[in-house]
């Protein structure tokens, strides 16, 4: 009798499982905007709740930005060799696609099994590049038709982002040489972005990193041109306005033009570039921050420059749309939307400018 009752309860619970309302994708949307190059870097990697993923991407669309950069850590998907968990990345890609957004997928972050003991997830030995390529190929294969752009690694010119090893343009180029053909074999139409270099004035021999202009030239010297389709650029303005002229000794928004010049000098002028991180910060204390009014004015101008002046630039994706929770640091002052989804004034101003 008791067993029968328990069985009935279990059956009831099981059937309720299917009736529970979930987050729906909703109708297919499209982005209405006056600036088809406008974008943002979202930060959904650690966003657990699906409705928040959906709301974030809805708000990006509603702001008038057709492009999003999002990070898909290899370790989160393939925590054991050959065993893939696509649950979270499916949610992000499907919601982004439904909102009519174009996704630029940033790939990196090695699982423990793919790297030596006591290394960080940003370290990868050359013999493991093929494993990373395998993951990248699986990724583009799975999201064929939904993801046409992938970035290989992030800021490899910084020791921090290169697993605290000495940044090495030759080794990074080797990573591209291994991974690029594997992606193309799986989905030839996918465009591979390389670089995503951190803008830095690090002096020669610095333990922290390599000057981005130097690193890019070293990539070309190592033969990188054959292994990427688009250059990913990080373009932070610090406290300079977006019209401050480019200067190799200064980190500002138009440093982008110096990276472009290196592309052209190396015969890569036919390839486009994309800014996949950048922007201004309005933290009251951070020494590289600007006033909130300047941040708005500079951001609007930057989107205008991307659209009207830089015909070689396909997208300008600014850091960072929203964090899942407060970072409790200057990073919170890069955002467009608060963690509770209340739009900051900068969001509303960008939205207004994209509607004109």
């Amino acid at each position, binding site marked *: 009798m008791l067993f029968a009752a328990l069985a009935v309860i279990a059956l009831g619970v099981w059937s309720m499982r299917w009736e529970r309302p979930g987050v729906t994708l909703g109708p297919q949307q499209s982005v209405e905007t006056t600036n088809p190059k406008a974008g943002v870097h979202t930060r959904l990697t650690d966003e657990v709740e699906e409705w928040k993923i959906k709301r974030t991407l809805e708000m990006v669309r509603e702001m008038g930005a057709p492009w999003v950069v999002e990070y898909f850590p290899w370790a989160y998907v393939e925590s054991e060799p050959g065993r893939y968990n696509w649950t979270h990345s499916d949610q992000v890609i499907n919601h982004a696609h439904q909102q009519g957004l174009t996704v630029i997928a940033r790939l990196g972050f090695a699982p423990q099994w793919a790297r030596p003991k006591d290394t960080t997830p940003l370290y990868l030995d050359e013999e493991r590049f093929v494993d990373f390529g395998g993951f990248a190929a699986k990724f583009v294969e799975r999201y064929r038709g939904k993801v046409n752009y992938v970035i290989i690694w992030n800021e490899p010119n910084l020791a921090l982002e290169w697993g605290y090893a000495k940044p090495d343009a030759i080794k990074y180029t080797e990573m591209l040489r291994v991974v690029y053909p594997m992606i193309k074999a799986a989905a030839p139409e996918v465009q591979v972005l390389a670089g995503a270099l951190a803008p830095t004035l690090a002096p020669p021999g610095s333990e922290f990193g390599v000057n981005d202009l130097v690193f890019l030239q070293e990539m070309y010297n190592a033969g990188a041109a054959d292994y990427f389709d688009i250059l990913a650029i990080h373009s932070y303005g610090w406290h300079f306005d977006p019209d401050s002229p480019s200067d190799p000794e200064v980190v500002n928004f138009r440093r982008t033009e110096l990276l472009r010049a290196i592309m052209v000098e190396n015969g890569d002028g036919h390839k486009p570039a994309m800014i996949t991180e950048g922007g201004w910060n*309005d933290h*009251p*204390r*951070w*020494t590289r921050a600007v*006033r*909130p*009014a*300047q*941040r*708005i004015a500079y951001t609007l101008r930057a989107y205008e420059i991307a659209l009207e002046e830089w015909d070689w630039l396909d997208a300008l994706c600014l850091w960072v749309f929203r964090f899942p929770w407060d970072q*409790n*640091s*200057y990073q919170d002052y890069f955002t467009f939307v608060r963690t509770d989804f*209340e739009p*900051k*004034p*900068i969001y*509303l*101003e960008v939205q207004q400018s994209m509607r004109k």
Partner: protein
Amino acid sequence: MRRPMVWVAGIAIIVGVAGAAWLADNRQVEMLLPFLRRDATWQAIQQRGVWRVGLDPSFPPFEMLDAEGTPIGFDVALAQALAESWGVRVEIVAVGFDSLPDALKAGRIDSIISAYPFDERLTQDFLFSAPYFDAGLRIGVHAGSTIRELTDLSGLRVGVEWGSQGDLIGRRLQQDGMNISVQPFDAPNELIAALIKSQSVDAIFVDNVSLRQAQVAGLPISAVGEPLESIPYVIVTPRRAHELHRQVEASLQQLIVSGELANMETRWFGAELGEELSQ
């Protein structure tokens, strides 16, 4: 295996009962308390004769560097006054704002006094003093204005710093149905000028630092109503530094009661903004 376990348990019970009996005598508790509440940070300050205070000297008027590179400002003066009351010297340690908690946790500094806002998420690691300044958002009006609180702003013009928290709150109030006209300005000094000089707005949403600077400079501006947002600046000490925390609280209260804290505020807040607008 069971017999040794029984012995261990038995001995533990006997020691526990004996200890409880010993502690039942209050004099014994008093003997133990100093040992139990031993504050290594306070003891080290006493032994060194130096209180190491961490701050990021890039936030006038709270902390900045003078022409010789010496840290000065409201927070530096506050640290010196507190240290003086304990008979020790202050050593200012310059640390980047975001690194201050780590520096305190690592023992590089004994305390933080750096216009540091209270953060309840850090309470498991640190002790926080009572606020010595609130930098939050206030409603600023021309002295003599009949505006007394937020609801009095209905139908009026409110100035905000474009893109700031004041701007966000102004837009939020509009969204919630409040009939106000939100007018943006590029910087706090322009905002205050719009209220005091051109009178192109009836009230402003302004941070309390800018407001106090204007007041100290003698401008006819008053704060009315409840703060729209509170950002209390506090002194931070390590979680186990009970005695240091107690001493900070006691001395801070003395500075408040004696009026010395208010004098420091007046001395350090009479800065550029007020002078610029007074002209």
